[in-house]
């Protein structure tokens, strides 16, 4: 059987979130298994399953070059722009 990753929407309005994985022969079985394994305590209102093999992931060895450059772009945040007291609830 194949490995599937399981994503669950806890309640409407929220994103699906990764909760774990399980084994199943096909997607339909994976959905049913996910329902039975991961929503026994009202944890979800919607389920996605994805074959683990179908996921492409970024490489942790490149994480410095990928993610560190965002660190010094402070001008992307509102706090970078001081405002006079009179208008600071902008």
């Amino acid at each position, binding site marked *: 059987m194949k490995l599937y990753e399981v994503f669950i929407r806890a309640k409407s309005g929220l994103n699906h979130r990764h909760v774990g994985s399980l*084994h199943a022969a096909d997607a339909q079985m994976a959905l049913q298994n996910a329902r039975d394994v991961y929503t026994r305590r009202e944890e979800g209102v919607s389920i996605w399953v994805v074959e683990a093999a179908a996921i492409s992931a970024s490489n942790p060895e490149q994480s410095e070059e990928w993610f560190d450059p965002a660190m010094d772009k402070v001008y992307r945040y509102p706090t970078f722009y001081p405002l006079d007291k009179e208008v600071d609830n902008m």
Partner: protein
Amino acid sequence: MNKAIEHYLLRLADTALTQSQRIAEWCGHGPFLEEDIALTNVALDLLGHAKLLYEQAAEVSEQDVSADDLAFLRDVDAFKNPILTELPRGDFAFTTLKQYFVDQFNVLLYQALMDSQYQPLSDIATKALKEVRYHLTRSRDWCLRLSLSTDEAKQKMQAALDDLYFYTPELFETDDQLNQLMAESIIPDMSALHNQWQQQVDELLNKCQLKTPTSGWLATGGLRGEHSEHLGYMLADMQFLQRAYPGCEW
């Protein structure tokens, strides 16, 4: 009137309990972990139905009894389930097909019972229907999966069908009390239900490319308390503590 209702509530409760008891035997022994967990969910749902039905039966009973008394202190000849549900769990094909027969029955029955003139039954049916619909999806899928895969699985499904098929008409058996309830629209017409059930089952068995057997022992009697040898063992096991230590709190 109350007598007939109590009789029917016990018919349904005993059916749910015995079916649950057999499915629960898989807990810790399933063919793989995910299915172990899924089967236990089915057992738990059915046990929940049994509890609601016994509680209602205790409510209408003239005797001072609890739901647990009804489950744990009646003997074989007082149990009213069809023989089908007391049969030993067998292999996974047997369990799957038996569960499918029961699920298909439950879905049609509870759908119809939602319109019951007896409100408590209609309430229980409304709650149970959601659960048995899910059970049916699962057991149908498994019937297809097993029948249309390997030769070994197909043979096991065919063997299960040969063993089980003639136990199914008993699900629809009636007696005077049930006929009275049907006349008062408290329960649906059982022969109409049987026709609907047969149509659904024929369709699935056809898809599964399984052949219905042409002869076998036609089960009967559960409603009258006439059972197979298996129920005695099941009750001996299930009721052991209540029998060995009467009158205790647990």
